């Protein structure tokens, strides 16, 4: 049998639409037999927080404020047409109406498919977060060298 194909995605954006692209590509690839690694960094960490809404999580007053302002998966804004936070609600409604998987359904599918989820160590420290602030499916907290090793020999995307 040939070596398993591999897709590694650097999820930098915390935008609803870009995270939808991350999880659409990731779950699609995993479903057709790829090994999939997603490395969440900076704003992208919002997608893997335990708290899906807005919460004051962080190590000091500034990072707790940032934590609240950034929020979790259900608080992600759209990169365009955000309309003060109404954008994601409109898109979720359009997705449901057209029988297209919502971001939350894609994240659930990623967990079921066993996609490897990783958090960026540097961004986690900058934002005053700990591994316990993330969903339990996050396999590990990594740096650049470990991610490069993981993604070696496959395709890599930055979203």
């Amino acid at each position, binding site marked *: *049998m040939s070596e398993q194909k591999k897709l590694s995605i650097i999820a930098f954006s915390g935008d609803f639409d870009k995270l939808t692209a991350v999880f*659409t*590509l990731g*779950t*699609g690839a*995993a*479903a*057709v*037999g790829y090994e999939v690694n997603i490395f969440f960094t900076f704003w992208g960490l919002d997608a893997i927080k335990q708290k899906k809404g807005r919460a004051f999580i962080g190590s000091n007053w500034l990072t707790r404020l940032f934590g609240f302002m950034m929020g979790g998966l259900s608080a992600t804004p759209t990169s365009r047409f955000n309309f003060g936070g109404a954008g994601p609600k409109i898109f979720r409604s359009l997705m449901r109406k*057209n*029988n*297209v*998987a919502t971001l939350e*359904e*894609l994240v659930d*599918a990623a967990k*079921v*498919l066993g996609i490897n989820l990783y958090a960026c160590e540097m961004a986690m420290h900058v934002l005053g977060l700990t591994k316990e602030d993330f969903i339990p499916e996050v396999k590990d907290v990594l740096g650049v060298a470990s991610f490069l090793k993981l993604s070696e020999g496959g395709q890599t995307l930055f979203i």
Partner: protein
Amino acid sequence: MANKTLDITREHCPMTFVKTKIELAKLQAGDTLEVLLSEGEPLENVPRNAVEQGYNVVKVEHVEGTTHRVVIRK
């Protein structure tokens, strides 16, 4: 007679593949899964991907309109 039927005619990418993959993973050796799907991308790719992942595509047939039936065995 298939052990289970999965209807993905109303699904879109990537859930067509995701739902098929999840159901295929539940099969025991020798079990079959009947997948009802639409022509276009699902019909072109679901059987091909099943073969690539080591399953046997037993049957591909037209049902009605744009709906097709694919039977996959583990």
